[in-house]
């Protein structure tokens, strides 16, 4: 099939950037979206132009590196699918495809479709851990954890940190990202001890990094390629309430 791509090109953080149009001809429906871009890039290189740069690495939907808003939806909007797992068979011959980077003040554009997501690192560094030392910890079975609790923690822990929740959110809030870690650790005996400090520090960091506030649009849940539920934001809110007056 033949497609027309409208791709955001921006040479650096200070450049204004604009959408450029490229044809993508002879695209196989078996290609992944990124393989389609690879082919377009090969063509650009051959014609002496600069290839489109985009973040990608594992190409199997787990590393969280790929980050594109396709036709107005993060990762293309297919349920539980990252860009790298999106296949061209979900498009039709003659389609116009708009490809843009994540857009948020907290994610400045580095180049073309690549953004700087270090703000998410700061949130994690603010408290996304248990303060255990290497060694000197009790046996893994010392604290039994009921299966429903372990499953709940695992549901939250599936977050791949791609930032689609921020990209989709009309407020550019990273609340879903933050809540996934807060909720995971809050229900486990190992994480409970520091739960109060964690939720305060991580949400404060979210604010400091220039993300917006959560106003319950729930767009993050629909944008998330791992299907992380907004119930974890509710859990974060409950955890926060426990800190009131402390």
């Amino acid at each position, binding site marked *: 099939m033949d497609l027309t791509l409208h791709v955001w090109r921006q040479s650096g953080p200070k450049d204004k950037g604009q959408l450029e149009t490229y044809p993508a001809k002879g695209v196989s429906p078996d290609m992944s979206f990124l393989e389609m871009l690879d082919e377009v890039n090969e063509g650009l290189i051959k014609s002496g132009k600069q290839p489109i740069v985009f973040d990608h690495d594992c190409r199997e939907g787990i590393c969280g590196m790929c980050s594109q808003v396709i036709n107005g939806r993060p990762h293309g909007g297919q349920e539980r699918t990252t860009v790298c797992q999106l296949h061209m068979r979900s498009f039709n011959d003659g389609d116009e495809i708009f490809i843009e980077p994540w857009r948020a*003040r907290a994610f400045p554009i580095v180049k073309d479709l690549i953004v700087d997501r270090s703000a998410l690192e700061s949130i994690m560094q603010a408290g996304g851990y248990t303060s255990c030392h290497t060694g000197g910890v009790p046996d893994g079975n010392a604290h039994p954890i009921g299966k429903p609790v372990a499953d709940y923690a695992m549901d939250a822990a599936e977050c791949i940190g791609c930032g689609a929740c921020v990209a989709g959110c*009309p407020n550019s*809030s990273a609340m879903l990202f933050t809540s996934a870690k807060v909720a995971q650790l809050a229900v486990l005996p190992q994480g409970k001890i520091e739960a109060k400090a964690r939720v305060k520090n991580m949400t404060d960091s979210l604010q400091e990094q220039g993300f917006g506030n959560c106003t319950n649009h729930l767009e993050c849940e629909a944008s998330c390629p791992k299907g992380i539920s907004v119930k974890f934001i509710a859990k974060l809110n409950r955890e926060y309430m426990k800190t009131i007056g402390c």
Partner: protein
Amino acid sequence: MHLTQSTVGRKILMAVTGLLLVGFITMHLLGNLSVFAGPDGINAYAEHLKSLGPLVWVFRLIMLALFAVHVTFGIKLSMENRAATPVNYSIKKRMKTTFSSESMLYTGLIILAFLIYHLLHFTVQITNPEISAAKLPLDAAMRPDVFSMVVLSFQKVFIALVYIVGMIALFLHLTHGLSSFVQTFGWNNGPSHDKVTLGGKLVAVVFLLAYVAIPVLILARFVNI
């Protein structure tokens, strides 16, 4: 204080004040519906409220404070959220965000404007003094004739429209607000949330129908002096 600065703390303040305001509009609605009982209904209700004296003022001050918090943080949070998204997408398709959730600031401001008008109209009574309870003769039981003021007002198309628009704004605001406070209070536990959202919408519809019934039925002359 952390609560007034934190992103979650302020969200909780919005939810708490919002919920209390919903409590107020519920009571207010029940009182207002007494208009359908004729002059003996609403005029007695108004007389009773007046007899509470200073308590009314305490209540009004509490409402003012709640409202001030809700409006101030509402505007502040919206401004911050706007600053957090400085560049728009060329194409953006919303998957879950609704018109009501995205227009909270605007519906909120419309409600604020409506409220000011409403207070000037029925409480201070300066927008249409000729049909205000202060100017109208007392009713048969020698009470200020609130009933006639309400009926004469809503028989004017413009005033009825203002109230209908105000109530539509309130409806949209509540459509998001009611399910939103459930989420903010942390009561969402996953699958049930769709039902909560639907429930919030239904409650908002009830408010809309009940409130709008007053100007609409009066305008349609179902209620007359």
